[in-house]
C-alpha cells in the first residue's frame, strides 16, 4: 500500500528522530484488502492486539475501482466461482452470479469487514513509508505522515498487483503505450487500433473489450497458453474440477488438457500458438470470451513483438500492422517497496509457505501466494497460522520455537508434482493442493487451532450493520524510547523490467 513514487524518495524520510509510539506488544497489519481483512479476523479472534493501516478510505484493496492506483477495470470478474471463493464461514451470497463482478466482490469484502467488526481497528487514509527491523527484534513502522510506531511484528498485506511490470517496447513506437494497470473501461479503446500484449487474465479481458468497440483489436502473445473456459457443461470450471475424480497430478494434466482441447478445440485452430507446456504448469487463464472473440474475428491473434517503428508494429512472424495504442497486460511485480530489504528485490518474495519471512522473525506477508486456486482460502489459513504463532509466543513459547525452527530450515516442495514454468511469473509458484496439504500437516503437528467462528449471530451473507465484534480499540501509547534511524532502503527504484 505504498505510493511507489513517494516513499522511495530518500528526501522524503523524516528529517530527524521524532517520538516513537511504542506498541511493541501489538501487531501491525498493513493493508485492508482481502488478505489484510482475513488476517485481521484471525488476530481478532485470538484476542491479539493489532493495528491495521489502510491507505485508501475504505476496505477492499484493489477491488475498489475508485482506489487510487488500483489495477481494477470495469470488465473484471472473479476468475474463481462464488462457490469456492469466499472466506471460510462467510460464503458469498447465493444471489451472486457464478463469477461475481468487481463491485460485488468489493461489497462482499465490505460486508465481511463489517460482520467481524474489523473496521474499528483500521486507520484509513494512512500509507506506510517504511518498515525497519530494530536491534531488539521489534519492528518500526514509519507512516507517510511521519508517525513512527514500534510493533512486535508486521504483517504485510499490501497487495501484489500495484506495481506494473512494464516491458520496454522494442524499436521506436510513437503511439500511445499504457499498462493494464491504467485500463479502466472500454471507452479507452473505442475506435482505436489496439494491441494488447500478454496472455493472462487481464490481457484477455481487455482485448475482448477492445474486440467490441475498438477499430481493431489484436492480442500479442509470445507463447502458447492454456485457456480454461469459465464454465464446463454449464458448471463453473472450478466446481466442475472439484466434483471430478481426484486423479494423480500427471494424469490429471493429461486428462483435463485433452478434455479442454476436445470440447473447446485447440488454440491453434484460432491462430493462437500451441501451448509449449502442460496444463497447470502456468497460472491458469480462465476466459471463455477470448475464444468467442477469435471465432468471430473480433480479435486477431499475433505472436510476440519483434520491433516497432512509428505506429507500425512488426511481429516475430514477420507480419506488421499499425496501432494507435499498445496496452501491456504483462502483470505485476510483487516487491514490497517499504520493506524491500526484508522481502528481497525479486519479482516475487521468497517466503516460507509463501507467507513467513525465513530470516526476519516477526515479519509476515499475506497475499503473495501465487497458486492455482481461489486465493481467499489461503489468506484465511495464513491469518490463522500467524495468529496461532503469535499467540504461542505469549503462551506456548516451546511450540512457537518449534515453528520458528521450521520457518528457518524447512524447505518443502510445494509443486505438487507439477513442473511449473520457469518464467519470472512463476517463480515461487506453488500448487494449491500441495500447499494446503503441507500446511495442514504442520498445523496438525503443532496442534494449532484453526477453526473459524462464523460471524456472531449470522450465517451466510451478512448485512453491514449486523455485527460488532467485541474487540478493544487499541490505544496508542507514546513512548519515550527514541526511534532508531530507519534503515535506509538499499536501492533506488528501478522498476523497468526488460522483457
Amino acid at each position, binding site marked *: 500500500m505504498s505510493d511507489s513514487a513517494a516513499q522511495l524518495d530518500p528526501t522524503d524520510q523524516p528529517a530527524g528522530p521524532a517520538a516513537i509510539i511504542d506498541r511493541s506488544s501489538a501487531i501491525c497489519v498493513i493493508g485492508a484488502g482481502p488478505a489484510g481483512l482475513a488476517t485481521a479476523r484471525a488476530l481478532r479472534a485470538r484476542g491479539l492486539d493489532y493495528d491495521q493501516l489502510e491507505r485508501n478510505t475504505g476496505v477492499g484493496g484493489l477491488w475498489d475501482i475508485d482506489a487510487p492506483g488500483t489495477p481494477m477495470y470495469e*470488465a473484471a*470478474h472473479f476468475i474463481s466461482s462464488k462457490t469456492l471463493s469466499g472466506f471460510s464461514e462467510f460464503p458469498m451470497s447465493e444471489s*451472486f*452470479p*457464478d*463469477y*461475481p*463482478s468487481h463491485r*460485488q466482490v468489493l461489497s462482499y469484502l465490505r460486508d465481511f469487514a463489517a460482520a467481524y467488526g474489523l473496521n474499528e481497528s483500521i486507520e484509513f487514509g494512512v500509507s506506510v513509508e517504511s518498515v525497519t527491523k530494530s536491534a531488539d527484534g521489534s519492528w518500526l513502522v514509519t507512516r507517510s505522515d511521519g508517525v513512527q510506531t514500534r510493533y512486535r511484528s508486521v504483517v504485510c498485506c499490501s497487495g501484489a498487483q500495484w506495481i506494473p511490470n512494464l516491458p520496454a517496447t522494442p524499436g521506436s513506437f510513437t503511439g500511445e503505450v499504457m499498462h493494464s494497470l491504467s485500463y479502466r473501461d*472500454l471507452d479507452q479503446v*473505442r475506435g482505436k487500433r489496439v494491441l494488447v500484449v500478454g496472455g493472462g487474465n487481464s490481457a484477455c479481458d481487455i482485448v475482448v*473489450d477492445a474486440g*467490441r*468497440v475498438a477499430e481493431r483489436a489484436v492480442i500479442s502473445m509470445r507463447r502458447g497458453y492454456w485457456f480454461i473456459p*469459465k*464454465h464446463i*457443461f*454449464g*458448471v*463453473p470450471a472450478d466446481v466442475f474440477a472439484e466434483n471430478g475424480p481426484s486423479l494423480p497430478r500427471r494424469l490429471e494434466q493429461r486428462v483435463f488438457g485433452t478434455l479442454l*482441447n*476436445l*470440447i*473447446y*478445440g*485447440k488454440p491453434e*485452430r484460432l491462430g493462437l500458438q500451441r501451448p509449449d507446456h502442460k496444463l497447470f504448469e502456468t497460472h491458469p487463464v480462465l476466459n*471463455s*470470451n477470448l*475464444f*468467442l472473440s*477469435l*471465432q*468471430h*474475428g*473480433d480479435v486477431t491473434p499475433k505472436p510476440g513483438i519483434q520491433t516497432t517503428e512509428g505506429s507500425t508494429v512488426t511481429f516475430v512472424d514477420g507480419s506488421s500492422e499499425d496501432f494507435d495504442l499498445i496496452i501491456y497486460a504483462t502483470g505485476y511485480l510483487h516487491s514490497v517497496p517499504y520493506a524491500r530489504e526484508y522481502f528481497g528485490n525479486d519479482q516475487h518474495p521468497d517466503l516460507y509457505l509463501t507467507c513467513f519471512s525465513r530470516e526476519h522473525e516477526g515479519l509476515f506477508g499475506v497475499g503473495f501466494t501465487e497458486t492455482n486456486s481461489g486465493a481467499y482460502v489461503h489468506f484465511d489459513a495464513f491469518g490463522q497460522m500467524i495468529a496461532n504463532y503469535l499467540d504461542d509466543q505469549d503462551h506456548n513459547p516451546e511450540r512457537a520455537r518449534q515453528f520458528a525452527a521450521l520457518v528457518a530450515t524447512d524447505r518443502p516442495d510445494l509443486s505438487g508434482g507439477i513442473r511449473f514454468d520457469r518464467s519470472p511469473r512463476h517463480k515461487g509458484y506453488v500448487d494449491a493442493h500441495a500447499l494446503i496439504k503441507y500446511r495442514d500437516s504442520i498445523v496438525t503437528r503443532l496442534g494449532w487451532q484453526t477453526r473459524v467462528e462464523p460471524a456472531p449471530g449470522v450465517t451466510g451473507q451478512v448485512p453491514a450493520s449486523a455485527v460488532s465484534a467485541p474487540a478493544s480499540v487499541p490505544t496508542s501509547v507514546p513512548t519515550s524510547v527514541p526511534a532508531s534511524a530507519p534503515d535506509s532502503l538499499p536501492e533506488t527504484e528501478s522498476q523497468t523490467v526488460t522483457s
Partner: protein
Amino acid sequence: MVDTIHAAPANSAPERAEPIERRRTLSTGRVVFLVIAAAAPMAAMVGNVPLGLIVGNGAGLPVAYLIASVVLLCFSVGYAAMSRRVVNTGAFYTYISRALGKPAGVGGAYVAVLSYAGLACGLIGAFGYFTNIVLLETGIDLPWYLYSAIAIVLVAWLGYRSADVSAKVLGTLMVAEFGILIVFDLAVIGKHGAQALPAVSFTTEQTFSGSIGIALMFAFTSFVGFESAALYGEETKDPERSIPRATYIALTSIGVFYVLTTWIIIGAAGGANAPALAKEQLGELVFNLIQANGGIVLHDLAAVLFCTSVLASVLALHNAASRYLFALGREQVVPRRLGSYHAQHQSPHLGSLTISALTAITTLIMAVSGADPYTVFATSFVGLGTLGIILLQAVTALAVVVFFWRRSDRDLWRCVIAPSIGFVGLTAGFVLAVLHYSTLTGSSNALVNAVPALLLVAVVAGVVVALRLRRDRPAIYAGLAGSELRRRTAASTEAPLYTRRYCLVGAGPFGLIMARALIAEGVPFDWYERHTDVGGIWDRDSPGSPMYESAHFISSKYTSGFYGHPMPADYPDYPNWRQIRDYIRGFARQYGLYDRVTLGVSVSSAVPLPEDRWEVTLSTGERKTYDGLIAAPGVTWHPRIPDVPGREQFTGTVRHSVSFGDGSELRGQRVLIVGGGNSGTDIASDAARHADTAYFSVRRGYRYIPKHVFGLPTDAVLTGILEPPRGVSLSGDLNEMIDLMVGDLTRLGLPKPDHDLLASHPIMNTQVLHHLAHGDLIAKPDLVGLTATAAVFADGSEAEVDTVLLATGYEYQLPFLDAGLLTWEHGHPQLYLNVFSREHDSLYVLGFIEFADAAYRRFDEMAQLVVMDLRARETGVHREQLRALKQDDHPDLRGGIRYVDSPRHATYVEARTYQAYLASLRDRFEWPDLSEDSYRTAVPESNPAPKETADLTSQGA
C-alpha cells in the same frame, strides 16, 4: 452376406451438398469382387446343397438355383434403377420407406435385424458342426457347441470393434474357394464324363419332386450378400453406371457357378440317388465327393476354407445386424442407447453386444436341448433368416415399382417389368417356403414350425412403433429414413430464347442470387434497388438497415457461402456484418451484377394487368409493363412492435432493435432488452458490457445453441463439413448434446427450454449466457407492462429502467403491392413453397421463409424454382402441372415438427423437409440440381474482376 447401413455419424446432416470428399475409389471390378466374396460361395455350396437335396427338390436342385438367379437378376435390375435416383445409405429400409411409407420401412428394418441375426445364429451352429467334422479326421472329437462358443467369442470381439474382415482377406478366400470348386468340377467331369451333368436334374419330374419352395429358399440363401453391391455405390466413382453393372456381373457369375456346381455335385453323387446319399452323409457329402474326386489335399484345403468362409460370413451377418440396430437406435425406433457408438472404435458396440448375447443364448439353448446343430439349429435359423431376406427383397421390388409408377422418367423394362418379375418370383419363393416350412425343419413340433410367424411379429411391431412415433413424436418420425434423390447435373431441355421480360425488385442477397440465376438462364429482366449500393440489410449505410455493430453471421463461413462463391478462407468462423457486406459485393462483382442493377431507383407500386402482366411504377415516375414480378424486398426492415401496457405512462425510452447501432448508445443507462432471438441476445450482450444495469426479458424457455462444439463451428460439424475430433461421437439426441454443453439454464435465471431443439428458430448465442453467469445481465420473465419508471414482469417483479429495447422481430411487408393481391395470415402472405403467389401466376416473392439452415444456398434453390417456372411459361412444357401445383399443392413442409406457436414461426419450414421437397420437384420436372459448378459455365465472366473481388475469390475455401 451383408446388407449394411452405413454407421457414419452424419445422419442428421441437413446439408450433404458438399461433404468432406468421401473416398470414391472403388471400380466396377472391385465391387464385383466384393459382392461375390460377400456371398461366400464355398459355404453356400457345402452348407446348402446337402440340405437342398434332402429337404428340397432333390436332384432337381440346379433348377432351383437357376430360378433364383433369374428372379434375383430381375430384382436387381429394379433395385439398380432405383439407386440411380435415390442415394442409398440405408439399404432396403430407405427404399421401402420412400416408396411404401415409413411404417412399412420400419417394419422392414425390424425384419432385417431379425433375419441377419437369425442367419448369424444359424451359421454359428453350422460352424460348430462343420468344424467338428473337419477336426474329427485329425482325431479331435469335441462337441460342436465348443467350436460355436469360440466363434461367438471371436465374432463378439471383432464385432464390438466393428472389424470387418478386410476386403483383401475376403477376396483371397473367395478366389481360393472358387478355385477349389472349379478344380472339383473339372475333376468330376474328367472322371465321370457326361454323367457329371445328369440330364435328370432338369426334368420336370425332378424339378417338382419334394419341395421346390424349400429348394428355392436354399438357393436364395446362397445368394444372400449380393444386395451389398448398392451399398458400395457411394464409394464408387460413377455409381449410376458401375453399380448396376457390378451387380449384374456378380449375380450372373455366381448364378452360373452355383447352377453348374450343384449340378456336378449331384452328378458326382449319382444323379437321382444324390438325395439318398446326402441323407446318409449330411454335411460330409460335398467333402466326401471332393475327396473322392479331387484327392485328399483338395479335400483338406476345402475343409479349412469352408470353416473360414463360414466364420467370415457369420461376422459379416453379425455386423449387418448390429449396424441395423445401431441405425434404428439413432432413428429411435429401437431403444436409443443402441444408437450410440464406441468413441474409440467408432463401432456400433451396443448393437453388437446385443446380437452377441442373442447368438450366445440361442446356441446355449440348442446345446442344452441336444438339438442337431446341422439339421435343426442351422436349418431352422438360416431358414428364418433367409425367409426374412426374401420377404424384404420382395417388398423392395414392390417399392421400386411403386416409386416409378407416377414418374415420367420410368423405363418400362427396368422400372416395371423386371422388378415385377422379381416381386412375383420372390413372393412365390417366400410363400412356398413358408408352406413347406415343416419339411425344412423336419420337425412336427408346432412351435418350431411356427418360427416364420416371428417375421410377421417383426413387421407388425415395426409398423406399430412407427405409427406411435408419428403420433407422439412427429419430429423424430419426420427424420426417419431420410433419403435423398441423386443429383441431376443437366436439365432435360435447353434454355429457350426468352421473349418475356421480368421485373426484379431488391438487390440484397436474395435479389443478387435471383439475378445471377436469371442471367444464367438468359431471362431478360430489369432490376431496381432503392439504395445506392447492393447488399440489403448488410449495408449499415442503407437507410433503415437493422444492422448493428456487433452483428455476426449465425451460420459459419463453412456453410454460408453462395454456390460457386465460397467465403474467403481467412474469414473468421462467424464473419461480422462488414465482412458479409464485402463478401456479398464481391459476389455481385464476380457475376457482373453491378452492370445489371439500377441503383437508387425504387418501385413505388406494381399493379397486375390482364394476362399475368404487371404495370410497375418507379420512383422516377416512369411506368413500365412486365411479364412478371419477382420481389425480393427483404424481411427485416419493418419492426414488429408489440403492445406493452402502460407504455404511455413510461417516462423512459421505448425503442425497437431496428434502430440499434452499438452498445455505446446504452452507456450509463438501466436497460431492458425484450426478446431472446438472435438480435436480442446480441444486443443484451452489448448492454451487459455498456449499460449500468442490463435486464434480459424472455417470454419462453429457449435453447441457446453454442456456435462451436468441440471448438468447431456447430453447423459445420453437424453437416459433416468438418469432422469432429477423433474419439468424439455425435450420436444420440441433439437436444441432449446441446443441453449437456450449455448446462442448466435455470441456474442463470432463464426458463427451462419448453420446446424441441428443432421446433423453434435456433438462437446461436452463448455469449448472453456468459454475461448472465457473470451478473452483467439479469434474466427476467416476460414483460407484462410498464409503470412511469419501471418494467413489470410476469412474475410480479419490477425493475427500474431508463430504456426498453424491443428486440421483437420484424414484419413482412410488400409496400409496393396492394395488400389485397395476396392472402395474408398472421402477418404472412400465403405463398406456395414460400415463393409462388397462389393467386397471380407471374408473381414471385422471395425471402418470406425461415428455417434453421444457412440461407444463401437455400435461396439459390428457391431461385431455381422461379426459373423453372419462367421456363415453363416460356416453353409451355410442364406449364399446366406447375400451374396446378401452385393452386392445389399443400405440402407439409414442417417435417412433422410442431413449431412453437409464435408469429415468427408461421412461415417456418423444416430445412431438410423443404430441401427434399424442392429436390423432388426438380426431379419430377427434370431440372438440374445446383452445385458449386452450376454457375461457373452458365455465367460468362464479366469484365475482369476488380482487385478487391480477386482477393475475395482467390482465397476461397
